[in-house]
């Protein structure tokens, strides 16, 4: 196990989530037929960025609270 605890795993996950997806979207934008489609793809990416950030925040907070409890 390379990442022993929740926080480091989250750290690794966000890279895949944000950057990986961003690159995928970038690739798709180049293939998109129209500007509208490209914009939609970018919107999808932004939404995922937002939700990803929120969820990892929540998970991290939960973990911290759980660990601080005896």
């Amino acid at each position, binding site marked *: 196990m390379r990442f022993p605890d929740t926080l480091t795993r989250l750290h690794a996950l966000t890279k895949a989530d944000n950057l990986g997806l961003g690159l995928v979207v970038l690739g798709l934008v180049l293939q998109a037929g129209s500007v509208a489609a490209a914009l939609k793809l970018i919107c999808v990416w932004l*939404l995922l960025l*937002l*939700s990803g950030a*929120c969820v990892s*925040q*929540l998970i991290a*907070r939960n973990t911290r609270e759980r660990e601080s409890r005896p």
Partner: protein
Amino acid sequence: MMTFVNLLLAVLLLALAAWTTLARNMFAAVVGFIAYGALLALAWVQLSGIDIALTEAAIGSGLTGLLLLNAASRLHVNANAGGNTGRSRLRVPAALLSAAVSGALMLCVFALPETPPTLAPDVAANLASTEVRNPITAVLLAFRAMDTLLEAIVLLFALIGVWSLSSDPHWGGRPGLRQYSEPNGILAYTARVLPPIGIVVGAYIFWTGADYPGGKFQGATLLAAMWLLVLMAGLADAPPIRRTWLRVALVAGPLAFIAVGFLGLQTAGAFLAYPEGFVKPLIIAIELALLPSLTLVLGLLLLGAPLRGEEP
């Protein structure tokens, strides 16, 4: 390439299904199920069922997953509660019989007729008369509109069942547990930022359903999810189920559907038929009427039985 993707999907699906059934930990099983639902949506894309993929992602994996996660956390079941003794000897016959059923089904898959029977030509031939371009919407709201009406009623029956499970003192009260979260926390922030976007997207999915994949169920699920997000963040509370506006809103959609059906009797000669030239507007009117009802019923099914009285 396509075959490779499909094979990978197949293997992953089976592995996750096995995980869901066999994992020792309840939470792990539910999380496995949600991932499995997302993969299933991909499988639907491969089977050129974009509409089903959307529904699967929204309802099959999303709402069902949320429902099960919530249940797992409320049951806080310990991981190995099932280690009871006497049943283990029945595991082998159970496995053998399940495998036999599976095998028989597989043989059936290969025994299906060489030239597959299909209704696609019939649908294609009659699509023009329904004035919508998405063939699935045509089936759902014209050719087999009865099933769609019944489906809305199924949801309501399930809701009656769920509500009937409240304890007597809480009858008529608010469903689900009161949620609290930090007013300035990230969850409350999300619940403020996301719903406007979600409502726009939900409305878009709903609107586009007449001509492209999408429709009322997928849209309603998104709207319900936004409502639940607001509730989860504690920004609002679920309404008590005795509220008249709530009950009227729940049944307004199906009643409107039935009313349009009887209108068809007058104008087009059959129950659930539409007069020529008004097909698309009527279909959209039905969907528009169903949308709020479905949003509410989906959200309320997730919230469960009333658990609290009238307290603020």
